[in-house]
């Protein structure tokens, strides 16, 4: 399975899987993104750090194509996606795990898991996903929203792993979860990285981000204002605290 992912990666390994340049975005009338620029290499985990309202979630929404209006350039796997509807972007191999988790109340856990269509070959099998998140198997017949917050988060991640998406957009997966669940999600992300998935992670909790990420992009007022490699994070804590205002 991991092999399949490597096979699907771009031929030129140094080329970024995702390259964003001068991305601007609007929510209705309000201009939220003012020229976001960053890129993500195949197999990499990057985080978007920043204060509330800085534009992190909006950036993810722009990548998957569900922002009302966007401008600039988003190249995924060599394809310019700025003018595409979200369903075609997803079909290129982008999987989206939204902030509010997006579990459907009128669907069972199993139906939630099976909902996103396969977009590329090489996704995990249902058994693999249930092995990764045993809780979900036990509760596969329950209503989706009857799960605990942590289980809902696992379901939200798990259903994307089925689709064969190469790039996973994760919006605050640890928000509001107990430490033990956060650890489990961290282990999951490390395992996905080992299997060759590429991840863009929006995170408030940089302590958590530090355990999984390769690079951190700092977002401020709709722009990427800094990049901190993970191994330099500790050296840059002062600067980071200033950015995040903690």
């Amino acid at each position, binding site marked *: 399975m991991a092999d399949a992912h490597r096979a699907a990666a771009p031929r030129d390994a140094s080329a970024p899987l995702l390259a964003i340049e001068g991305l601007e975005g609007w929510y209705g009338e309000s201009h939220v993104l003012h020229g976001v620029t960053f890129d993500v290499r195949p197999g990499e985990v990057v985080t978007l750090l920043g204060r509330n309202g800085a534009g992190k979630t909006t950036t993810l929404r722009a990548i*998957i*194509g*569900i922002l009302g209006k966007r401008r600039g350039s988003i190249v995924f796997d060599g394809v310019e996606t700025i003018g595409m*509807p*979200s*369903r*075609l*972007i*997803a*079909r290129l191999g982008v999987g*989206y795990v*939204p902030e509010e988790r*997006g579990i*459907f*109340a*009128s*669907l069972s856990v199993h*139906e939630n898991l*099976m*909902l*996103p*269509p396969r*977009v590329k070959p090489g996704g995990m099998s249902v058994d693999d996903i249930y092995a990764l998140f045993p809780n979900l198997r036990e509760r596969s017949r329950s209503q989706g929203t009857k799960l605990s917050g942590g289980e809902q988060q696992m379901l939200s991640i798990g259903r994307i792993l089925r*689709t064969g998406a190469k790039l996973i957009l994760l919006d605050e997966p640890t928000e509001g979860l107990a430490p033990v669940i956060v650890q489990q999600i961290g282990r999951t992300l490390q395992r996905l990285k080992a299997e060759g998935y590429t991840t863009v992670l929006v995170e408030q909790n940089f302590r958590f981000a530090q355990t999984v990420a390769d690079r951190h992009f700092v977002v401020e007022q709709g722009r990427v204002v800094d990049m901190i490699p993970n191994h330099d994070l500790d050296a840059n804590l002062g600067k980071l605290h200033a950015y995040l205002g903690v």
Partner: protein
Amino acid sequence: MTTIFGVSVQALSGQLLLGLINGSFYAMLSLGLAIIFGLLNVINFAHGALYMMGAFVAWILLNELGLGYWWALLIAPLAVGLFGALLERLLLARLYKLDHLYGLLLTFGLALIIQGLFRQHYGSSGLPYVIPPELSGGQRLPFMFLPNYRAWVVAASLVICLSTWLLIEKTKLGAYLRAATENPTLVGAFGVNVPLLITLTYAFGVGLAALAGVLAAPIYSVNPAMGADIIIVVFAVVVIGGMGSILGSILTGFGLGLVEGLTKVFYPEASSVVIFVIMAVVLLAKPSGLFGRSA
């Protein structure tokens, strides 16, 4: 002769059967309305007109092309469904970003056009449609005479309603529909073609209406006003049931048909308004409807 509360059992069961038949149409129509509303947020005012169109397609097939009832059961829903798909793609799709009331106004206009065109061409007096030979005649039960065609209508609409329920609750396509009803944006972000799903849903809903129209053709005369008369009652049915639940729509439809039948027996003057009165009572007691979620 046996009587209950001074009413003969024959009259009672006869009216209950009629009520059950009306209830069949209420159920099929309100089911389609609820499915369409769930995904499109549009109350399809043209639903009655498309039901009428189904009956007319059956009549035209029989009288102009010599194709009988069983063909009509197949062709009319497909033809009207296709017409509905065109309406959705060309007209309704332009309104999804606006206030939902515009959808109501647009489909009201469409209902006027469709109804006016049929009246212009076929007059308003009504055309007869004969019961197919396989379903003519009836059964002599101990307490009443049961016409075969009426039994067939009740059975067929029950099967149609339950199959629709199974389709929505138990299949993959139904899961897409339920999910998109909750959050169309996210379903689109998973790579599902939501605009196509919307078109199919509208076509399916109005196809159901057309199917009801074909079933109705041999019972009522086929006339351009038949849809307008029933759709307002169906709106009341939908308000009473609430549009949150598929089974709720079906139950409410059949139940209110029966209540209407009973009213015809015991207090005939009130039979045309009883459903509206029930609606008023439900609004006072449980504004979200019997099976509705809040607001």
